């Protein structure tokens, strides 16, 4: 089960990016010298369905609160800042994704970019 705090997301795609910070310097003698400054904590990107206006609004509010939110996944879980979110409604008449919600609740596709906080 995937959740951001208590908001349920039906994830279709999930991706994490990790990166070292490496400076490239080129002395006259040729070649490239690398200096390792450190690394960036992972950035997670996920795409999924969210059922209901209230849940989408909850997620959207997380993009401007500057607070950490807990991402629960079947794999590794952890605290993230929600850096960005895009959403679009799906052409759905009746939803059966979430049987705890009314079948006429709208369904959205959301894309989240999450900054992991070590």
């Amino acid at each position, binding site marked *: 089960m995937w959740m951001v705090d208590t908001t349920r997301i039906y994830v279709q795609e999930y991706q994490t990016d990790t990166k070292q910070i490496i400076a490239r310097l080129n002395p*006259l*003698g040729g070649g490239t010298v690398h200096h390792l400054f450190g690394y960036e904590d992972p950035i997670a990107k996920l795409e999924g369905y969210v059922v209901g206006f209230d849940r989408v609004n909850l997620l959207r509010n997380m993009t401007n609160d500057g607070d950490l939110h807990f991402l629960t996944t079947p794999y590794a879980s952890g605290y993230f800042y929600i850096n960005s979110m895009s959403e679009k409604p799906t052409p759905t008449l009746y939803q059966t994704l979430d049987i705890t919600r009314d079948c006429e609740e709208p369904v959205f596709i959301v894309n989240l970019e999450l900054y992991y906080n070590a």
Partner: protein
Amino acid sequence: MPSLYCDIDGFSNIISANVQSGHPSSTSSAVIECISTTKDIGDFIEIDLGYSDNHKKVFSGYIKQKSNKAPENTIMITANDVLIRAMDYFVVSSDPETPFTRQNIKAEDFIQDILELAGLTSFDFDATDFTLAISVPAEVNLISAYDYANSIAEYVAWHLYADEDGVIHFLNRKPYVMVSGQPDDAQPGFVADSSLKTIDDSNILEFDLRYDERDLRNRVVVYGTSGIFASVSRATSWNPVTDTYQQILPADFYKTIAAAVPFIDTIEMAQKAADYNLQLYNRLGVKGSLSILGDPDLLARKVITVDNTILGINTTFYIYSAEHSWSKGGYNTSMELRK
């Protein structure tokens, strides 16, 4: 691949560090950007930077300024070495009739006494052959301790500076490579330089070399107390490339530097000051700008050998100033060099 290293007690998540030191600068300075620090204005800090397998202390001094930046929410710290205490210490006697005075005193003792007013205690001074204020007491009032002390150093053509450990040096350190056979090699305290290391094309990022007579002076005049003065001049000037005197300025043309020194009260001292300063200033400027992969050994006042195939240079240079720039863009050292 070397990992960059920077450690400053009380600082965490350091984003960048920049350390500058130089022969002509009154103090070394450092600018640090970080996420958080427990240090505050007036605190003493030491900067140890380089690589995880090769790092050294490159600076120690006092925090002079602390600023917070938005929107990054980072902290910028500016610090200066211990001589900033002398810069900031303004000598003012409570009673103008009884100022701080010294009489018949060696130059090095006079400087130390003045710097001690600012609470400085760690000294490494060589002995000059200058005795000042022999018959008339020298008064020190309404001037910063550093300015007065440094005016003495300039007068005897020596150098006053603080090193990365906070020790204050006063010695015969010329702003160029000191080698035997130079005009000034008989002066007290002269020690021929040896090269610390060779920098070749495998480390050089940029290098330029230039020659000029901008700072050349071939006539020196010193005024002391009333009736005391001395001057000296020379038509030819020292060329540090050929190690000979040559006609560099047009014939019969003299560029003059003058000093008015209230603590000189004998002709002998005035003449010696003129002679020493002529040897210091009457030389062709051979100057370089060198940028290399960061090296924490290379601070101002060291001597290095530069071996560059493009310019066909393989010779020693004095590090006139050095700047260590450490950030996620890498670590590099930029230097101004003098031959």
